[in-house]
């Protein structure tokens, strides 16, 4: 009996990595089957937002709610774009720099407030997110104002041929996801979870709340700034509306729909909410209704988000089996 249980556990342990590995292999081989550049574009955007939502989730692990996450994406994007445009530096240099700028500003804002209750940081980040758009508008000589910033240096030489970009973003996403996964399950990540669960107990064990909260912020902002900067050099144009408060709320949507409790949650949520509307593009102006329908269904039927779906189906079947057993 015990051996059986142990072997089950061993077998189960390989399910997740093999699922990820299988998915990665499928994505690598996808260009053999899929030729449309439009679909590559959609997948690239999905990859960018997957990095953004997973880094959002990493911050929420420590119990905080960064209601300015899209703004940090914008900071990374605009920093990298402006640096490469004004100073002529190569995007390969400015993209990491953009991420560093986003991290620096994130730590600057977070540090005074990380020591207070998490709710206060949430409010301040909300205001900061709104304010940063205004600040970007003020410097519109460099950022282009509401008409947008155009003519950004492309990352790779070919711009209309999407395949190199596809592989670049696939690789970038895999690396970022690996880093964030390792971060969540290393000692720092577990300490952060402890803080989120009960900050009193965590402090009593010697975990420095404020420092770990700031570390979580720094890591989260770095990756989302990286994603934003890479996006800027792919899309070649930037506009404020991609980075305002509603964008942050949508990032939260993707995470919550997928399931905030698990690492795969944001990935699933982003993929679903990006790809399904694209499949049904013929609906055109009725598309938002489809997204809203997905939101409502997941909220009311699946409290744990989409990753909870196998669990939910399993419990339904168990319920059904029980009823059939009782009836017979």
């Amino acid at each position, binding site marked *: 009996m015990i051996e059986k249980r142990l072997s089950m556990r061993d077998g189960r342990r390989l399910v997740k990595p093999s699922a990820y590995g299988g998915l990665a292999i499928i994505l690598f081989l996808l260009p053999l089957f899929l030729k449309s550049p439009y679909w590559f574009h959609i997948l690239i955007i999905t990859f960018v937002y997957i990095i953004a939502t997973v880094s959002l989730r990493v911050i929420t692990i420590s119990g905080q709610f960064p209601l300015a996450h899209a703004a940090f994406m914008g900071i990374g994007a605009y920093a990298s774009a402006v640096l490469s445009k004004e100073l002529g530096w190569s995007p390969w240099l400015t993209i990491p720099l953009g991420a560093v700028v986003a991290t620096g500003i994130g730590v600057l804002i977070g540090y005074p407030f990380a020591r207070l209750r998490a709710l206060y940081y949430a409010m301040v980040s909300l*205001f900061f997110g709104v304010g940063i758009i205004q600040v970007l508008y003020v410097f519109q000589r460099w950022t282009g104002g509401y008409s947008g910033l155009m003519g950004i240096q492309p990352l790779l030489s070919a711009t209309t041929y999407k395949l190199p970009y596809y592989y670049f973003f696939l690789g970038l996403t895999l690396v970022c996801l690996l880093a964030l996964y390792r971060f969540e399950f290393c000692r720092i990540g577990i300490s952060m979870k402890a803080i989120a669960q009960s900050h009193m107990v965590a402090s009593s064990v010697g975990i420095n709340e404020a420092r770990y909260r700031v570390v979580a912020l720094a890591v989260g902002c770095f990756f989302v700034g990286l994603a934003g900067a890479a996006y800027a050099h792919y899309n070649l144009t930037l506009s404020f509306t991609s980075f305002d408060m509603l964008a942050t709320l949508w990032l939260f949507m993707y995470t919550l729909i997928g399931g905030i409790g698990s690492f795969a949650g944001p990935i699933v949520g982003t993929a679903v909410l990006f790809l399904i509307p694209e499949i049904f593009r013929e609906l055109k102006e009725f598309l938002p209704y489809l997204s809203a329908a997905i939101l409502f269904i997941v909220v009311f039927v699946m409290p744990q988000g989409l990753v909870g779906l196998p669990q939910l189906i399993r419990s339904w079947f168990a319920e059904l089996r029980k009823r059939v057993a009782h009836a017979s």
Partner: protein
Amino acid sequence: MELTVTTLINMLVLSSMYILVALGFAFLFSIMGILNFAHGAIYMVGGYICYQFAVEYGLNQWLSLLLSVLIVASFGLFLERFCFRPLFGDLNRTIVVSIGIIVVLENTVNILVGTSTRSLPAFVPGILRAGALSLSAERLVTFLIGGALLAAIIWFIRRTKPGQQMQAISQNLEGAALQGISIHRISALACVMACGLAAVAGCLMGAFLNLTPFMGDYMLVKAIELVILGGIGSMGGIFFAGLIIGSLDATLPLFISGAASQAVALGIIVVILLFRPQGFFGRELII
């Protein structure tokens, strides 16, 4: 001299505008603890319904306002019953549902209305003049109605039975339930009132500014600013927060550009929060 008086009047008008919009949101958030992000969208829908009645059907404008309030308030009833009640206490999912509602409302209005900008005719046409100063009667009416509603809400919470029940619920949920207060019924009442307030704000502001399907987004941010600065749990705090934010938004653009003044105002709010995170009159949150 005239500039000062005009600025002062602008301050009061802007403050009353923000307070009017924030009232419904604050009502739900401070008293019931429900974060209703859809408030902006409901405010917008209120304005559009009023437009429909006043301009398309040609009814009297005040009657249209009343009808809009009734329709939106009943929508609030539906909202509470099906969206907020099943998710009571679960902040994450409440946010998701609110966003879903925003998407549905804004998209519906967008489809029905298209890209034409519309504007409600003024409720009280005419301009008052006093010497070299002029003030449109519209703004005065908005200011008076905003102030009157704020006072009415505060009176309602302090003096009437349902209002005191709401206070009890916000202080201690289980204790209130033990006293026999029906949480669901009071929540429904709060939601209906909040949506009604949003509709009034939408109608009055629709006469001021143009009606667009997305005007709710900007006002939602202002409402959140007011509530957080004033303090969660306090309706009186809205008044002072509204005055401060209204003053900042009226005076700063005189010195620096519009967007910079927004950024500076937010920066000032953040600094205030640094020293007093719970806002002016907020309770110290124990989280």
